[in-house]
């Protein structure tokens, strides 16, 4: 249907000015109350006791340690999940094998499991009541209530983040380019780095950014496995809880303001990456392409 540029578009459903203004107004007011206000109050409360208190909290050794631990968890968990995400996407989108749909569902499980349940589950693997706990204890290996436990729990919670961005995209891109490259004699690694990677780089980065935000902010799963030892196994979110329950609200909000800032940067990065086309192929497309048999 070719529409001349001069023709006025007919009004669509819900385009009456009054209704339109009313709906925009209601949505903006509710959004301001529910989403914007929490962000603003973090800043307000963080500086409620003045700049000096803010600076003292941020530079306090316990806070600095919590920041370091949070960064460390991200530095380990994010790259490992990135490698996993790439491997999973390559296996699932470039090959057909029995149980593929089931594997897709298993990869997505951490999204639906409560973080507390994840933490408890890790207790029954590496804790003293768990499968490997007694053996590990005998050899003096400490996983729970120590840094490895925090990292493992973060990995569980964020396991699907990179994979779910890559799988629908690589599914849609198909296998032709890679097949052409290998048939011309390129090795598997070369094919991946010079053919696949350039096509998925924005989606990959998108997944990494979201994965990082979640690792740095994870609370429930980490609070079960960390043991909450101040200055030792407290990540930033746990440190916030500790300060808050210690009646140091200003300190809690000061620490929270760091994480809120990371969240805002995450959203800015997300929007920038979406402009590059990342995150555009959404979940329904994933199912569509897996359902469609490769001819």
């Amino acid at each position, binding site marked *: 249907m070719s529409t001349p540029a001069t023709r006025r578009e007919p009004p669509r459903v819900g385009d009456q000015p009054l209704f339109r203004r009313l709906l925009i107004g209601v949505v903006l007011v509710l959004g301001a109350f529910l989403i914007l206000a929490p962000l603003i109050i973090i800043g307000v409360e963080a500086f409620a006791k003045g700049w000096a208190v803010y600076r003292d909290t941020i530079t306090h050794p316990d806070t600095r340690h919590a920041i370091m631990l949070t960064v460390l968890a991200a530095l380990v968990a994010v790259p490992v999940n990135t490698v996993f995400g790439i491997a999973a996407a390559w296996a699932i989108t470039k090959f057909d*094998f029995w149980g593929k749909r089931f594997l897709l569902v298993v990869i997505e499980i951490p999204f639906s499991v409560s973080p507390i349940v994840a933490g408890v589950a890790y207790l029954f693997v590496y804790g003293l009541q768990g499968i490997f706990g007694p053996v590990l204890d005998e050899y003096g290996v400490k996983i729970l209530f120590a840094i490895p436990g925090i990292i493992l729990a973060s990995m569980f919670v964020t396991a699907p983040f990179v994979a779910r961005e890559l799988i629908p995209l690589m599914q849609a891109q198909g296998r032709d380019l890679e097949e052409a490259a290998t048939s011309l004699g390129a090795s598997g690694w070369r094919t991946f780095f010079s053919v696949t990677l350039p096509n998925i780089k924005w989606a990959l980065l998108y997944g990494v950014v979201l994965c990082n935000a979640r690792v740095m902010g994870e609370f429930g799963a980490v609070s079960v496995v960390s043991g909450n030892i101040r200055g030792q196994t407290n990540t930033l979110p746990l440190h916030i809880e500790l300060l808050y329950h210690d009646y140091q609200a200003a300190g809690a909000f000061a620490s929270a303001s760091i994480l809120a800032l990371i969240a805002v940067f995450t959203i800015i990065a997300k929007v920038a990456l979406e402009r590059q086309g990342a995150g555009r192929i959404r979940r329904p497309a994933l199912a569509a392409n897996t359902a469609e048999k*490769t001819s």
Partner: protein
Amino acid sequence: MRRNVLPGLPLSLGVTLFYVGLIVVLPLAALVFKAASLGPEDYWRIVSSSRALASYRVTVLSALGATVFNLFFGLALAWVLTRYRFPGWRIVDAMVDLPFALPTAVAGIALTALFTTNGWFGSILGDLGIKVAYTPLGIMIAMCFTSLPFIVRTVQPVLEDLDPALEEAAQSLGGSDWAIFRKVILPLLTPALLAGVSLSFARALGEFGAIIFIAGNQPMSTEITALLIFIRLEEYDYQAAAAIASVLLLTAFFMLALTNWMQSRALRYTARG
């Protein structure tokens, strides 16, 4: 099926299965094993104790309330963001993801500060006789916050792809806007709405960090199931923690199956149209 010439299946599938096995399957299997080792009688006694039942009730009811609110607000937000252009709509669109990006503990203390009796909203609502913080209403608001993006982000792409010709046809037949919305647009959105609702509900059931600060955490009234598990752990009652956690895990599996079924149905629906 055609012959595959690409290399890397053993390596990539090996890494995937090893990682999924170690990080996802092993811990969940250990939890199920631990819960199963209790024996049916002990298991039933724990998961049906009055405190556990009260925690399910407050969790499920709050999650239902939050999901119903998000169904309407999420649909309105998705509608406004796809249909209307106004100054700053891009910022609003980006802000919808804030609940995903903001750590739950941060959201929890922020919402509590807003809704306590001397907070910005709490003081106004208090004058009206509504108490939010440390009541089930507070739990609901925390759940609304964390699950809102699910419904917006599942409905938005479907609204964007809606063919204007369908509306034009209905308009030319003389349908009122409300009739067209109800009889033409809503049925097309229903599969996405249902998928968003189940995602949102599942997330609300498992939420912990955002809720515990605002909930009050009184046993039998404002204690959510995730918190009860945590309390049992702190009491070193690992069996009870395992049993109640297994209830949440089974619910999560059920919701996952439901969501997958709804999404595949949604797909068949759009594929037909």
